[in-house]
């Protein structure tokens, strides 16, 4: 029983993490964790700055298909 609960909780946690990653909800956390950000001499962007910058980049190339 305990094993089943643990497994369910692990699956749900993983699903939640995947869902956040898929829709871009955790993009800022990923950006903060990335090697590029940690080793870059440039100032780290705030959440709001990162959000706008990321959208401008994403929608300047084909990202939705027919």
């Amino acid at each position, binding site marked *: 029983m305990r094993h089943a609960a643990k497994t369910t909780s692990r699956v749900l946690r993983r699903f939640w993490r*995947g*869902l*956040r*990653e*898929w*829709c*871009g*909800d955790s*993009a*800022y956390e*990923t*950006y*903060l*964790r*990335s*090697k*590029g*950000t940690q080793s*870059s001499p440039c100032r780290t962007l705030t*959440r*709001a700055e*990162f*959000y*706008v*910058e*990321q*959208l*401008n*980049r*994403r*929608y*300047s*190339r*084909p*990202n*939705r*298909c*027919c």
Partner: protein
Amino acid sequence: MKRLFSIAVWIAVGLLGAGALGSIALHRGEPLNATWFVVAAVCCYLVAYRLYSAFVAAKVLALDDTRATPSERHDDGRDFVPTNKWVLFGHHFAAIAGPGPLVGPTLAAQFGYLPGTLWLIAGAAFAGCVQDFVILFCSIRRDGKSIGQMAREEVSERGGFIAQLAVLAIMTILLAVIGLVVVNALKSSPWATFTLAMTIPIALLLGLYLRFVRPGRVLEASVMGVALVLFVVVAGQWVADSPSWARVFTLSGVALAFAIIAYGFAASALPVWLLLAPRDYLSAFIKAGAIFSLAAGILIVRPQVLMPPLTRFIDGTGPVFAGKIFPFCFITIACGAISGFHSLISSGTTPKMILRESHARFIGYGAMLLESFVGVMAMVAACAMPPGVYFAINSPPSIVGNAGEAAVSTISGWGYPLQAQTMTDLAHKVGEITLWNRAGGAPSLAVGMAQIFSSTIGGERLLSIWYHFAIMFEALFILTVLDAGTRVGRFMVQDLGGRFWKPFGRTRWMPGVLISSAIIVALWGYFLYQGVVDPLGGINSLWPLFGISNQLLAAVALVVATTILMKMGKLRWIWVTLLPMAGLVIITMTASYQKIFDANPRIGFLAYAKVLAAQIAAGRIPAEKVAETQRLIFNQRLDATVTGVLAAMILVLIFEALVHWYSILTRRKESVLHESPYVATLWAADYSGTAHGDD
């Protein structure tokens, strides 16, 4: 023992798939249950994935997991982000799955269920999935370069330029034709028009929330947005029931076309965070939910497929669009089997996020299999309604007449019994004024989906809500493609203009933004308007034009893939991309020739122009209609020119490639592969498979 068991299981899956396919192909007489379609498709996909994609991965591409991918080498948390393979699969699928696999099979159902279903399954397994997989692999090996850049480097400078021009041309036609699908779905429907119009203020609200209140909290904003969208789907009924409000939202085709053109301009020129991105979030969630629900609905309801395997329209006289099964079934299905547009995604965001080379098989090949499955479900939904109803919804008035007894007698005369009362009752049940002459695929698909959904939840009482949910789902994500495509088109126009005048190329210079947005919107807007006023229904001209251009882009992608395989020394396996490429070239060139030169005015653009010119010359056109008819003649000639130019561009590219291949094979030219140098992965030692989706 374990190996023997595995072999036995795969033989059983193969036999089950073959049996189900055989049932679909050979069944005659009584209606067939949709379960056979699901079983046949799923078994074929499993076998294709297990055997063919494994062969391509191991022998043809020789995927190498010891090699660092671009996401490892350039990890910047922005473009290059190492991503779990399941999450990236979801990303990639959300990007490639558009309205094409839903609308194409619905239109191709006029030939009967068999040709479309067979091409959806076989075309995906041997052409579409291979294209997506190989292009993804090529881009991974080149730091995520685009298909245009790869064509320039691996084929020729001119090849790259042609590929970029082809993308712009295809984008223009694509945006026009999907705009036309939305116009035909919303025409004279206050409920659907209100629902879709309300998604704009909802998206603006979400945009402001995500920008100023809770920046980047996409999930919570999307949940609120989806709840609001579902509310306006229900509220649309109150609008439709109120005579004064219904009048406001009852728009003609031309008015809707101008509204969509204005929307496209606004979405392209406004900041992306305000309208475009929040709409995309809404669309992604609703798309995922609707596709999952449709699959579940088909499995639960297991509807009977009422359309025959082959209809009389395989002879080319179809009312939805004219043309024989070859090549028009392939051109019409387009994205559900193979889509050139996917090569832009496979060489765009996905290669920059992939974690290991071996994931390319699951993401590139697997996501396309899923898209093909969406196409099969759309085919089932369209074929589950009585054929008479299907043809009544999808035929233009110039073929069957304007509703009523004349149309009933035409359709019944084809051998598909129909009663006028059936159409009246159905329109009433789904909350529409009329369902006659609603060509474009969206309304008939929505009727099919609504019947499946309402058989699962709510019964006939909820049929109207489900119908408008389906219309909203289709229109919402079509408009998402339209606004995102217009914005990308704007960047292309600015890039092109910037070569002649530098300031125009600056993406933040407001006059440049406005002018380039106006240019791209005017380009596709013209074709959209032309489709809306076309007496043959617009879809008859524009959908084949879209299919031809899309499949031509796929041929470009396969030319690039074949060249790269040749340079990699994989001459033995070159047929993997060469055969689908040759097939596509034959299909698209035949279709292009027929669309330009066929003597039947419903097929050939020039023949139709000639008929109209003869009618003016003979004085059969009333004086007040002469100017309009002359515009129509001009449009037919324009369509013929566009088709010819597209076909010529691809022939030039193929000629360039053939010269290049000859030089490589005869060793007149050194074969230079522009791959990034090998860098060993550093993740091998501390790599966590669980965290990255390998478990």
